[in-house]
């Protein structure tokens, strides 16, 4: 396992510091929905939240060397997001700035996720999914909850439920697939769909 400083993204971050765009893409995919959701909660505008999310990851790419691993990577990204959101609501020049960020072009397509607010559409839908999670067989539910809700590592989960790490990995994967299958069949496949804003080029 590639963890140092208790950071689950340590290896990917090190790769990003070496300007590895593939590693950055993984991190961007992983954290974008949560960052978007937080920003949407702040600015209450889909367009602004998208713009800000894009800016967050541009800034993350540019400033990754300043991430020392003192906190979780998501915490750091979230901090960037909040600072940008704060500037957004206080700066009149925001709309000008967002079109002219800096010079180097990174050829990342900017993946767009439907926000939980817009696509799940209701707390009820969210509840249905969470209720389904609660009905998962214990062997799947426990490792999944320990991972997703408690942020435990596979090693920690293996110790807690007293089984090999490989089994934990397999059960978490199966839990995810079971939940996603349920969402696809019983809730809304739309929730899982995304679209690329392919015209966007990242300027970082």
């Amino acid at each position, binding site marked *: *396992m*590639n963890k140092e400083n208790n*950071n*689950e*993204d*340590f*290896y*990917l971050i090190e*790769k990003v510091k070496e300007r*590895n765009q*593939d*590693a950055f893409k*993984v991190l961007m*995919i*992983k*954290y974008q*929905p*949560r960052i*978007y*959701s*937080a920003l949407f*909660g*702040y600015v*209450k505008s889909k367009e602004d939240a998208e713009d800000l999310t894009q800016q967050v990851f541009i800034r993350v790419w540019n400033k990754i060397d300043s991430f020392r691993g003192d*906190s979780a990577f998501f*915490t*750091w990204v*979230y*901090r960037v997001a*909040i600072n940008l959101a*704060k500037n957004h*609501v*206080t700066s009149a020049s925001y709309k000008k700035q967002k079109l002219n960020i800096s010079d180097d072009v990174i050829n990342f397509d900017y993946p767009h*996720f*439907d926000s*939980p607010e817009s696509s799940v559409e209701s*707390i009820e839908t*969210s*509840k249905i*999914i*969470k*209720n389904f*999670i609660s009905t998962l067989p214990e062997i799947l*539910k426990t490792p999944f*909850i320990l*991972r*997703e*809700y408690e*942020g435990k*590592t*596979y090693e920690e989960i293996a110790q807690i439920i007293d089984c090999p790490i490989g089994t934990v*990995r*397999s059960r*978490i*994967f199966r839990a*995810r*697939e079971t939940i*996603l299958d349920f969402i696809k069949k019983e809730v809304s496949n739309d929730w*899982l769909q*995304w679209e690329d804003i392919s015209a966007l080029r990242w300027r970082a």
Partner: protein
Amino acid sequence: MTDYNEKISALYDGELSSTETDELLARIEDEGMQDQLKKYAQLSALIASGEQESKPSNITYIKFPDFFQYRPWLSNGMSAAAAVLLTVFLINPSESDRLGFNSQAQSQIQDAINSDEAKTNIIRIEEGLLEHMFNVLDKSNVENKNQFNPNLTNVGFQSRSNKPGHYTNGKENFYIHIADKDLGLKRARYWRSGTNMVYLFPLPGGKIITLYGNLSLEEANKIINSIEIR
């Protein structure tokens, strides 16, 4: 294929070896892989979103009630600390009774959602508490010789001589802070902050004790009960 997909799941969790990670990164343009990662990310976002839904265990996670909507004027210190504060969580009623906590906060937040007036009041209190908490978190990394340093050996914690206000029992570490602030806190409140917890305990006369660290509720309760405030 299942093994490949399982590896993607482990990649998402940061649980692959560097060699395995490199192997998958080389295939990042695979749309199936990206799609799988995005679905996992959506699922995580749903789980993080809370919104008064029940977590399928005995802890109820709730989203802070439109926290940022009400405070676009976060101070610098607060905005930094806000990054570590995503979720308020409350113990369910039976457990909270046993530990001397109650579900007041949960009902308050429900009130805040249902009533504009209550919302204003609750948000004002929450803002004050959070601002205080963020300040404490900021101070926790700064040596402060005037820091409150009670003797906690009776509950198994030793003060760390080089860091005033910091205690350890070898396994659990925390920072303690006391302040004269009447923030309207009537009952103990606590938050998750990354892997740590923040506990706020009200004292008579408006003082507030804050504990910040990887402390369990039980330990926090014991510590507070052992402290004599004059």
